């Protein structure tokens, strides 16, 4: 069973469109994240939710809106897509505990805006 799954894996869309990426984790973790990886492989955190509450909201355009219907799901909606939004988006989850904060990643969603 996939621990953190996100869909779609590949997404090609035109500028100005609105798109969503869905994410689900079956690890029972309380915290979920969205990361953006640019073409140089640099990973930047976008959002973090803990038990459906937003706890990290980095400097991200407000065209990006996360939604967490329950603690196992964290979806990412992007409005009015721009060329610069092309990147790989990773969903992740973690459970803070005695062994630190180990983050588990999904397989990524490759977004290409044309």
């Amino acid at each position, binding site marked *: 069973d996939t621990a953190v799954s996100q869909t779609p894996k590949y997404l090609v869309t035109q500028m100005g469109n609105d798109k969503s990426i869905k994410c689900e984790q079956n690890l029972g973790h309380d915290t979920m994240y969205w990361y953006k990886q640019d073409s140089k492989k640099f990973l930047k955190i976008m959002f973090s939710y803990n038990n459906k509450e937003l706890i990290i909201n980095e400097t991200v355009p407000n065209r990006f809106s996360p939604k967490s219907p329950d603690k196992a799901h964290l979806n990412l909606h992007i409005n009015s897509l721009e060329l610069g939004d092309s990147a790989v988006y990773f969903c992740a989850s973690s459970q803070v505990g005695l062994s630190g904060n180990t983050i588990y990643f999904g*397989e*990524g969603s490759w977004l290409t805006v044309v």
Partner: protein
Amino acid sequence: AQSVTQLDSHVSVSEGTPVLLRCNYSSSYSPSLFWYVQHPNKGLQLLLKYTSAATLVKGINGFEAEFKKSETSFHLTKPSAHMSDAAEYFCVVSTNTGGFKTIFGAGTRLFVKA
């Protein structure tokens, strides 16, 4: 404040020779340290982690890392490289400062020559 520096953007080795990927960190608190591997078009997979137990940590696929507090380093090693080790490697530092803060290194691309 915390930071993580991967000292090499890319490393090239021959198959069967040792691998050394270097990582230095800075943290005001006792950190947890991780190494992740990302194969092409894949998500990030946890290789190993240090969370204040044994300073020599063994991970998957024959990798290990040693936490050296005096040198603020957490270098990743493997005695003998395999072609399948070719990937991007990320060093990560995480500290609990009333809420976990996780910082990713910029990544080191490992090339393995036949």
